[in-house]
């Protein structure tokens, strides 16, 4: 994947897995990552949300240390995307999502359960406070 690419490949199976994760965690926000190489997602990893309440997510930092310094180097893979859910709001980054988007090389995926029968996922690049939607390809 070229950094800053306007497209991101999200296979249907991974999209379904994110929606399934979001539904299982509801009313809490779910979170996880997609790792892979270049434009090729390898797998999705569900992560633990250690934030309190139902309006925030924070991936367990202990899992992040393992991901960044053990799993990714050992398998020569990259962090491609970070996902979380919005249980009751639209799939667009909140002010806090934007402020805390430290991993600007990754695509931020948001799964909305606002319309519970019609969940959907959108992807964004968030860099220096600006948000650009990326087209999700299956």
């Amino acid at each position, binding site marked *: 994947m070229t950094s800053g690419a306007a497209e991101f490949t999200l296979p249907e199976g991974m999209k379904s897995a994110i929606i399934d994760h979001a539904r299982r965690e509801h009313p809490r*926000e779910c*979170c996880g*990552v997609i790792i892979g190489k270049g434009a090729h997602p390898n797998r999705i990893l569900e*992560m633990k949300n250690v*934030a309190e309440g139902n*309006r*925030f*997510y*924070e*991936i367990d*930092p*202990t899992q*992040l*240390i393992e991901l*960044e*310094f053990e799993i990714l*180097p050992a398998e020569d893979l990259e*962090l491609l995307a*970070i996902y*979380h859910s*919005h249980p*009751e*709001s*639209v799939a*667009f*980054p*909140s*002010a*806090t*999502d934007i402020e*805390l*988007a*430290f*991993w*600007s*090389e990754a695509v931020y995926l948001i799964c909305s359960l606002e319309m519970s029968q019609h969940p959907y996922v959108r992807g964004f690049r968030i860099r220096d406070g600006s948000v650009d939607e990326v087209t999700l390809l299956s």
Partner: protein
Amino acid sequence: MPDDKAMTVLIPTPLRRYTNGQARVSVSGDNVATILERLDTEFPGLGERLRDDGGQIRRFVNVFVNGKNVRDLDGLETKVSPGDEIGIIPAMAGGLSAGSPQS
């Protein structure tokens, strides 16, 4: 001359722009505070990303020593020894701001 008191500091991808792309660097010090100070001396701009104006580790940055979060140890005063491995990791986090409309 190699510094036999040095510790390895693991630098996460988003902060490697400050370390010329290096994923691991060697720094010496007695505790986490001195390690972070010396990181900033050696790699200008990095310290600001790790500590707030009061000198504390930023809320959404975590520092680990040998796999343990220093927030569960002695924070900035956590002792380090030669050979220890120090990992720095920015949070992956977000949420709805208090009082904001759902967005």
